[in-house]
């Protein structure tokens, strides 16, 4: 006897993701999920942006890492709440992990939560964490051909930060060709070419981000 089920395999993750989103909305906290392959520059971006953000907003960070708390240590000088999640081999963060992590954050005293996902260009794509903004960071050193190779993760991003543009010439990367490749799988995402090591390249991106944060506060 055949019985129709029609249930999404990610039904449980999505339900917890929605619970997380309700919790964040209730507290008017803007949440960003930063995804990239290993070493694209997620923590460097946090290091470069936190001084500015923490001077204006109450910020917390959730650090996803397979085994270590090295990235969390790098952010300690900012003196903000940081929760470390070690996935112990798991290739992505899921909504349940975030739900657990936020229990130790002062939610009534925060404006922004920045989540650094585990470095991986495949698995994090399928897991809604309850975030407001999904940011894909992509380093030019990874080449121009990856958007179509890793189409799911590129297609699901609302913002694509093309990082390490200072190395573009060295790596023979034509930025306009890279943008065309991104557009072939994602027509809508906001694209910002940046170098996480150089403050002056981050201005436009930071303005965009701040507008999103303010919009949430005023909702």
């Amino acid at each position: 006897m055949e019985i129709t089920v029609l249930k999404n395999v990610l039904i449980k993750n999505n339900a917890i993701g929605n619970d997380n989103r309700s919790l964040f909305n209730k507290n008017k906290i803007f949440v960003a999920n930063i995804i990239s392959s290993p070493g694209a520059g997620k923590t460097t971006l946090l290091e470069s942006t936190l001084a500015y953000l923490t001077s204006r907003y109450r910020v917390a960070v959730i650090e996803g890492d397979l085994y270590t708390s090295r990235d969390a240590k790098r952010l300690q000088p900012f003196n903000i709440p940081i929760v470390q999640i070690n996935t112990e081999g798991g290739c992505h963060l899921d909504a349940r992990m975030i739900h657990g992590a936020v229990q130790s954050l002062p939610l009534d005293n925060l404006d922004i939560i920045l989540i650094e996902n585990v470095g991986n260009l495949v698995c994090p794509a399928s897991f809604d964490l309850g975030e407001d903004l999904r940011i894909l960071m992509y380093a030019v050193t990874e080449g121009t051909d990856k958007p179509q190779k890793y189409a799911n993760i590129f297609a699901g991003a609302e913002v694509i930060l093309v990082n390490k543009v200072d190395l573009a010439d060295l790596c023979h990367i034509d930025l306009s060709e890279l943008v065309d490749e991104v557009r072939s799988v994602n027509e809508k995402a906001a694209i910002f070419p940046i170098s996480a090591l150089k403050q002056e390249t981050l201005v436009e991106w930071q303005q965009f981000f701040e507008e999103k944060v303010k919009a949430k506060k005023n909702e």
Partner: protein
Amino acid sequence: MHESSKAQQIIEIVSELMTTDPTLAKKKLTKVTLEMGRPYIVSPDSLEFYFAELIKITPWPCATLSCIESKELGPELIIKSIEVDDLDTQEDLADGNHGTKKCSDQEQCDRER
């Protein structure tokens, strides 16, 4: 890794259905059909492999997973349907083992598959 956690999630969803729906109380699970859209987010072969391994420790160790492509879906995984049979014997029912006993050896499983 990725496929194994997806296989585990599929098993959790169908197990919940099998154990909470009263009309399925006297049935055993034989097949799960999963619809996948392109681009695939998992490899169908690998998912079927992990399902076959992980289902062994459930009350329905002979159940199989069949992945089919759906043109309507995007990069999603939808459990389309399950197939169930009547439990084999009164003995199975009395033991509350939902068919485990009959399927517990590999040869029996292979015959059923």
